[in-house]
């Protein structure tokens, strides 16, 4: 590695800068960075646009950040809005706000409260969400525990333990005729599956629990199955 000390980049107020290697990048106010950033700490309070990719150890977003490339960080805390055009690779992701990635999302530990969107596959060891989310690819995690707000969409779900709970909010129940609180997916595969308010074409697992407000096409199970009275299941097969 270079022995020279890397400098910091601070933007306070309105400003712009080229990218590069830094120790600390702080943007307070409104800032534009014109190319890739490689830094230890990326901290944004305000509105920031990065016309390239961001690579950091620790990133924190209070406010609004737009990254036109991809974002890679050990830790990412978002208490605002982060829009990433390409991939998002982050070991530990905490979201109290809004995160959307155009490409793949990959990491270890995801805690999401708010809005989450992924344009590709989403892979993690634990995926805990109390939010409204949409994933265009496969959601793959060891432990998936979600409470859904509004209509959530995922192409496919796979993992070991999959729990889906619905959280009716007051506004949600008022809007019910228009937008159902429901998780819509093609396929769910896991060892322990416990569902509520889920609409899926196929569910496959060992021990399956189909709770209220579910509408499932086919359920295939190897162990035990519990189906709630007000759930609709097209066909259930023990295999």
């Amino acid at each position, binding site marked *: 590695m270079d022995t020279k000390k890397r400098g910091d980049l601070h933007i306070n107020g309105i400003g712009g800068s080229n990218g590069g290697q830094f120790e600390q990048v702080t943007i307070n106010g409104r800032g534009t960075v014109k190319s890739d950033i490689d830094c230890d700490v990326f901290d944004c309070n305000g509105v920031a646009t990065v016309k390239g990719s961001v690579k950091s150890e620790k990133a924190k977003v209070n406010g609004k950040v737009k990254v036109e490339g991809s974002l890679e960080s050990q830790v990412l805390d978002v208490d605002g809005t982060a829009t990433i055009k390409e991939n998002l690779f982050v070991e530990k992701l905490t979201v109290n706000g809004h995160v959307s990635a155009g490409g793949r999302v990959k990491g270890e530990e995801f805690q999401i409260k708010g809005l989450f969107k992924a344009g590709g596959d989403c*892979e993690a060891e634990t995926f805990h969400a109390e939010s409204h989310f949409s994933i265009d690819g496969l959601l793959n995690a060891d432990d998936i525990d979600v409470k859904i707000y509004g209509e959530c969409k995922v192409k496919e779900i796979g993992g*070991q333990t999959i729990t889906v709970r619905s959280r009716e909010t007051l506004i949600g129940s008022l809007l019910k005729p228009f937008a159902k609180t429901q998780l819509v997916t*093609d396929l769910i595969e*896991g*060892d322990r599956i416990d569902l509520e308010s889920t609409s899926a074409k196929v569910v496959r697992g*060992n021990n399956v629990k189909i709770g209220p407000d579910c509408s499932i*096409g086919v359920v295939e199970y190897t162990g035990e199955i519990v189906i709630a009275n007000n759930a609709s299941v097209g066909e259930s097969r023990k*295999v």
Partner: protein
Amino acid sequence: MSEELISKKELLDLTGISYGQLYRWKRKDLIPEDWFIRKSTFTGQETFFPKEKILERIEKIQMMKENLSLDELANMFSPNVADLKLGENELIKRNIVSVTVLNLYIENEKGGPQLDFSRTLEAYVLEKLLQSGEINLDEGKMVVQILKDNRSIIKQKSGELVITRKLGVSSCLLLINTEAFHFENGTKVVSRTSLMHCMEELKAKLL
């Protein structure tokens, strides 16, 4: 592609692994992304795998996961290899390369007596081909040359080494991510070697 496929359900039945394990291995890249083949069937979309490859891979994972962590396993199946340097004696002692082949390799490749992974792989491939009797010494020199020249590509991608002969003239080519290849009539394909496969064999021997 004409290889036999196996559906995900059959695979789980056959190997006794769970969905959780399968997805975990996929996450850790123990099973390559392009082995997941999506096809629509009368029950909807289903995932299929190349049967022979996936069964072999799962057997390997199950066999080795007792001793190795998942991350170590992932490291082993990925084409980028940890830093490694072995002396000549070590290679001979571990039965990876025989003395004659190793001497031949070092003579042709003109490198030092310490072998890193790329060079170990080259020596190993040479050993395999020569021992099988499929190629002769001159062809062996060709093999070393082509592997040496394309070292950086081999490290990153899965390559295949093909040796052909026509009218007694032999030729050697390196294929990167190729599905199929065809030659004119009268060309004999002497040997096909998957370098990825060799890497895995070699890594299994080194660990």
